[in-house]
């Protein structure tokens, strides 16, 4: 019986009191409802089960499979960088390494503490790792140590259960056998940064132990060198424990690149630069192959690979010799007198008789200013030959005014100055070959006669990089339009001729030979190799006005740059070389290096003997000196050194170091006086400190007395 519906708040007359039978009836009805509800839930569950197991089966099967199978990428072995003989400039070596994946670490301090004990990490190394752990995003593995021996590696491996997030593995790491010698040439590798990963969503990039090229050739040829990763498929538990191996695919190593560099020569040149800050470029006079391209001091790419440590960073950052700058491609210098053979060639092309002479009395009046020759006593009657081997400034002042800047600038460009060569490096500086049109464009000013005078002696607006100087040397030597070549190519077409008359070249060659082997400014540069004569040209470029310093001594930063360009043998040129020594105090710092590097090409034993003698007094070879310096820093600063920069900051710092210091572009040089040249000749140099041969003074008299500061 059904109860009639009443509102709870209405007060109806109560019908009959509810009886037991009614309740039983209601119980049965409600139990039926309950049973139906349960059956409904049962159907719902069965339907849901069918949906999951049948309709969505494929999706969940895939999900289950991706759970079960763990794909581990095996970083590919990087392609080697080899020299022209096949010797390794950058290779791989097998090593044991330990990484940390920050995301998986539970207690970073405890883990690091334990690792430090197991691996014998120093305090500063631990601080470095902590910095990186803090900065790292979850997926980026941080390297704790590499090149471990088996015992240490095993010690970590067996304690893995207590070290969540720590990944020990066997792999390959990049190795640069000659270290700092190829730092700028080859570049270095490092772990991919978050930005790299943003650009290329490749899981390989976050595989522990994988490195990508960060600088130089390593970066430029990344694609070619990288190779194809291998993969290991394993069945693993949710906790990461491997249950069984499902198969492994081998990696495909990256392709090697062969350079025209001669590894031995590169290393020798790097060592021979010694304590100086400078660069050496050696080119093959037949092909343009770069045999050596060294910028020192440098960094050790081996230590950059693990991310640079705080002490090493402090060392690099505080070094005024800018070890992070590739001086060959990014250093710009006034070339000084090394341009004189080129200028002379321009004179010859313009029809100047090589016997045409000028009387050098130690200076030349141009307009109302006096331009001094480096030799204040004068060279007497000077023809082209003497002008070159004695580096007489007055000869060039005189005839440059006759011939005009346009012809000189054209020849400079023809020989490679101011030219851009396609080298696989970013951010090269190409310098300036000034001419009237350029000055008008750049400064909106008329070309003045003293600009010509300055340019002819490689001062003023004239700026070159050492590579261009080497190209100039090789073109002067060969008469061919050689371009620097870094990548080995046996099928490259022969370089075309520059179209310069051979008798002109012969004259220049003879004059440059005289510089070294005759009455010239670099007699000490004579090669100790019987039958091989080297031809060259010295250059000294002033850095600061003589009112600041004399360029020879005093503050390192104020000393003159030293240059030397050369080729050998002079009568049948095979090799050309350019040496630039920053603040070396003059060309005397440059040509002994050129001499020894050239000697090495003809007689290795003799050259090595000389080098080893030097290295004894320098405190060891490059690596030994860097290690000693490192230890000194470590002892002094220890873990208190400021944090090493992260990738981005480091790159920025390197870039800052690489922006060319535009020393003399600020036209302080209204008439930067030619700096004193040789040491070979009786040295009048010291006298200059008392009587600055400086700036063209507006003195009406031709007297060699001039105002100390360049008037403007």
């Amino acid at each position, binding site marked *: 019986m059904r109860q009639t519906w009443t509102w709870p708040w209405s007060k109806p007359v109560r019908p009959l009191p509810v009886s037991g039978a009614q309740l039983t009836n209601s*119980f049965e009805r409600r139990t039926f409802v*309950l*049973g139906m509800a349960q059956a409904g839930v049962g159907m719902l*569950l069965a339907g849901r*089960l069918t949906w*999951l197991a049948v309709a969505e089966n494929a999706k969940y099967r895939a999900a*289950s499979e991706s759970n079960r199978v763990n794909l581990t990428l095996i970083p590919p072995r990087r392609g080697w960088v080899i020299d022209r003989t096949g010797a390794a400039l950058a290779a791989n070596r097998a090593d044991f390494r330990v990484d940390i994946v920050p995301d998986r670490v539970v207690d970073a301090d405890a883990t690091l503490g334990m690792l430090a004990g197991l691996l014998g990490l120093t305090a500063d190394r631990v601080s470095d790792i902590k910095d990186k752990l803090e900065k790292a995003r979850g997926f980026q593995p941080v390297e704790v140590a590499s090149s471990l021996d088996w015992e240490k590696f095993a010690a970590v491996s067996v304690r893995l259960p207590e070290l969540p997030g720590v990944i020990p593995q066997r792999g390959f790491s990049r190795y640069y056998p000659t270290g700092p010698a190829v730092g700028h040439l080859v570049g270095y590798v490092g772990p991919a940064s978050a930005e790299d990963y943003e650009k290329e969503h490749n899981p390989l990039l976050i595989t522990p132990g994988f490195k990508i090229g960060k600088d130089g050739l390593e970066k430029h040829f990344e694609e070619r060198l990288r190779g194809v990763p291998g993969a290991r498929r394993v069945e693993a538990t949710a906790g990461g424990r491997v249950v069984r191996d499902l198969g492994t695919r081998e990696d495909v190593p990256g392709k090697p690149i062969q350079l025209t560099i001669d590894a031995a020569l590169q290393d020798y040149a790097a060592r021979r630069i010694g304590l100086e800050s400078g660069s050496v470029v050696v080119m093959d006079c037949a092909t343009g192959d770069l045999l050596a391209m060294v910028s020192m001091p440098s960094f050790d790419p081996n230590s950059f690979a693990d991310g640079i440590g705080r002490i090493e960073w402090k060392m690099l950052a505080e070094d005024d010799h800018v070890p992070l700058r590739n001086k060959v491609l990014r250093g710009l210098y006034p070339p000084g007198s090394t341009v004189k053979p080129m200028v002379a060639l321009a004179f010859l092309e313009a029809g100047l008789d090589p016997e045409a002479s000028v009387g050098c009395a130690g200076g030349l009046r141009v307009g109302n200013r006096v331009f001094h020759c480096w030799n204040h006593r004068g060279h007497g009657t000077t023809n082209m030959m003497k002008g070159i081997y004695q580096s007489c400034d007055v000869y060039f002042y005189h005839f440059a005014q006759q011939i005009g800047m346009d012809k000189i600038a054209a020849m400079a460009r023809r020989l490679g100055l101011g030219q851009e060569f396609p080298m696989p490096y970013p951010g090269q500086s190409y310098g300036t070959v000034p001419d009237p049109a350029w000055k008008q464009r750049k400064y909106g000013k008329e070309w003045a006669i003293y600009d010509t005078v300055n340019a002819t002696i490689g001062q003023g607006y004239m700026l070159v990089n050492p590579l261009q100087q080497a190209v100039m040397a090789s073109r002067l030597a060969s008469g061919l339009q050689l371009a620097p070549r870094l990548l080995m190519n046996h099928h490259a077409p022969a370089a075309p001729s520059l179209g310069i008359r051979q008798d002109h070249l012969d004259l220049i060659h003879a004059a440059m030979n005289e510089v070294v082997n005759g009455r010239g400014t670099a007699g000490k540069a004579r090669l100790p190799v019987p039958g091989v004569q080297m031809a060259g040209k010295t250059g000294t470029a002033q850095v600061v006005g003589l009112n600041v310093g004399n360029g020879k001594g005093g503050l390192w930063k104020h000393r003159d740059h030293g240059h030397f360009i050369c080729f050998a043998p002079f009568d049948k040129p095979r090799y050309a070389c350019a040496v630039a020594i920053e603040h070396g105090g003059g060309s005397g710092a440059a040509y002994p290096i050129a001499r020894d590097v050239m000697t090495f090409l003809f007689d290795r034993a003799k050259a090595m003997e000389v080098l080893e003698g030097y290295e004894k007094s320098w405190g060891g070879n490059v690596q030994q000196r860097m290690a000693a310096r490192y230890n000194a820093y470590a002892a002094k600063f220890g873990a208190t050194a400021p944090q090493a920069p992260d990738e981005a900051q480091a790159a920025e710092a390197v870039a800052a170091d690489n922006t060319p210091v535009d020393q003399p572009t600020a036209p302080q040089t209204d008439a930067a006086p030619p700096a004193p040249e040789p040491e070979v000749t009786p040295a009048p140099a010291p006298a200059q400190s008392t009587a600055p041969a400086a700036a063209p003074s507006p003195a009406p008299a031709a007297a060699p007395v001039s105002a100390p500061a360049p008037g403007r």
Partner: protein
Amino acid sequence: MQRAYIPGFIARQPWGVILPLLALVLFGGAVLYSAAGGHLMPWALLHVLRFLVFLVMAMVISRIPQEWFKNAALPSYVMLCVLLVLVELIGRVGGGSQRWLNLGFMQLQPSELMKPGIVLVLAWFYSVLPPSEIRTGRAIAPAVLLLGLPAGLVMLQPDLGTGLAISFGAVVIMFLAGLPLWLFISGGAAVAVAAPLAFFTLLHDYQRKRVLVFLDPESDPLGSGYHITQSKIAIGSGGLFGKGFGQGSQSHLDYLPEAHTDFVFATMAEEWGMMGGLFVLTVFALVLRWGIAVALRAPDRFSRLLAAGMVTTIFFYVCINLMMVMGLAPVVGIPLPFVSHGGSSMMTNMLCIGTLMAVDRWSQRQDGTFR
């Protein structure tokens, strides 16, 4: 009788429920055997042994006279409430939530026993309440009090799942006892309004998170949503016939959490597929249908309500657990009766079965006559 040659004691047993249960427990044992990586220990053997022990207990219970049940209803309820308070106190001292008392030889979980306990006490209450009072406040207020005390204590522990189970059993008894319908309709409406409020005020953070994750498991695939996601993967990847006995990668490689307790259905479905799942559902349908049939033919009001309440308790376990593993309900720690490994839930469920068997006996003895 056909079964004349079978001893009377055996013939009298309710084989209609024992056989399906035995099948289910053995099947559960097989699943646990596989989940242990092909070992009887630590789960499968214990599971079956426990069932047999508790089956004996259920048979013993089934022989208890109805009067004993009635007399024990209130005292056992009071004792369970005292134990719940005790748990709460010890829990306070121990710091943190505690759900069990260590009796030395076993871990006693009073809230678990409270599930049949509340059914028993309410069935007793409504059997002594005169039928004419059923639509008055006297039918409601004592029942609400009887429910509120233990439910409140359990929720305080905090143990939302068990609290809901207790409440669900109690509410169903009230419903079947004949309380006016409008109470349940308006009560349902009130819950619908209050639930969001309770969600933001009463629930603990982890409970709130579970609910949120239930609504969107992918929002936290490695955290709270992990359970649901992995369970669905296990069930879904099993397909029609499963991956084969001992081949469940989800459970064997530890991707599925609680593979032998709360998520045992997923473990099973991965290896036995939809067919295994339907088998489990069918067995539960048989057991529940038997239970409802027992309730319907029960001889009196007390036994009817008692039986229906026990069925409801088992149903609630099954329903919530299966909904949870299939991603239809938030993760609450409720095991699957007769399949999940665990002593407490086995005991509770066998208490329910034993009580149902007792009711079944009473109805057979009275042979359909009403008292």
